[in-house]
């Protein structure tokens, strides 16, 4: 495994990419590229709902994941507007904006200048479309896997195995996507 270090960056994260990293047991890949991952308070309940509450607690204890302060009233209003826009996206499978508040809050957190987030980690298409409209730079768990492949940390076999593990646990990565990442980024 290459022993050189990259200069890590700071990000905010929606629930999905962290769940994927936990599903395939490779949070270490996130730790290789990110100094700190900020999550919004509303996301904690989502991790618990997914059965990953203990894992999140461990990451918070390690100070790798940092729970941000509660949103201000203005930020809450902004998050609600963003959540409504996510719900209205053609690719959104859920028209109830309340269910998109965690992604919207992650976007609001990303935009806090004092946190210095350079990217938002987001895998869900409808939320990504809104984040893009907001001018945020986006990456996702398969993007991290791809970069790890380019860095020689993962072979094609590794990539297929990790994304398939997420897929087997219900994460919606298509076979075509898995093959593309495997062939393009695997070494």
């Amino acid at each position, binding site marked *: 495994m290459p022993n050189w270090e*990259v*200069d890590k*960056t700071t990000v905010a994260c929606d629930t999905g990419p962290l769940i*994927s990293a936990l599903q395939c047991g490779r949070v270490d890949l996130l730790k290789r590229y990110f100094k700190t991952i900020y999550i919004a308070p509303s996301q904690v309940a989502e991790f618990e709902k997914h059965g990953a509450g203990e894992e999140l607690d461990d990451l918070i204890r390690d100070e790798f994941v940092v729970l941000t302060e509660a949103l201000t009233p203005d930020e809450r209003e902004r998050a609600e507007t963003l959540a409504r826009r996510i719900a209205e996206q053609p690719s959104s499978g859920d028209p109830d904006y309340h269910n998109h508040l965690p992604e919207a809050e992650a976007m609001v957190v990303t935009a806090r200048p004092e946190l210095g987030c350079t990217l938002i980690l987001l895998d869900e*298409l409808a939320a990504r479309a809104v984040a893009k409209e907001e001018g945020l730079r986006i990456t996702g768990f398969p*993007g991290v896997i791809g970069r790890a492949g380019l860095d020689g940390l993962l072979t094609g076999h590794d990539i297929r195995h990790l994304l398939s593990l997420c897929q087997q646990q219900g*994460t919606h990565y298509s076979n075509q*996507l898995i093959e593309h990442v495997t062939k393009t980024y695997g070494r």
Partner: protein
Amino acid sequence: MEMKRIAPHEPQAALLSAEDVDKDVAFLSEALMEERARRIAQNVLLRPDMRQILGDLLESGACENEEEAIARGLKTLSVALLPALEGNGKKN
């Protein structure tokens, strides 16, 4: 040890295409490169001797700004060392 099963996040939601992932890798790489550039610039500019040289170059009018001075300095070094690098078979 058996890995704990964790429920998927929004399993019914439309997720990424191949093009999306390619852009994601590019954005991540760009952000990491920016961090690297910040570190290098900071380490160079925090050195008093480097600041002095940069100041002298700007004052002389040889370069318009710090970025130009650093870029021209690197190009000059590269040209100066090229014969030696070629001799060692290290030219990229």
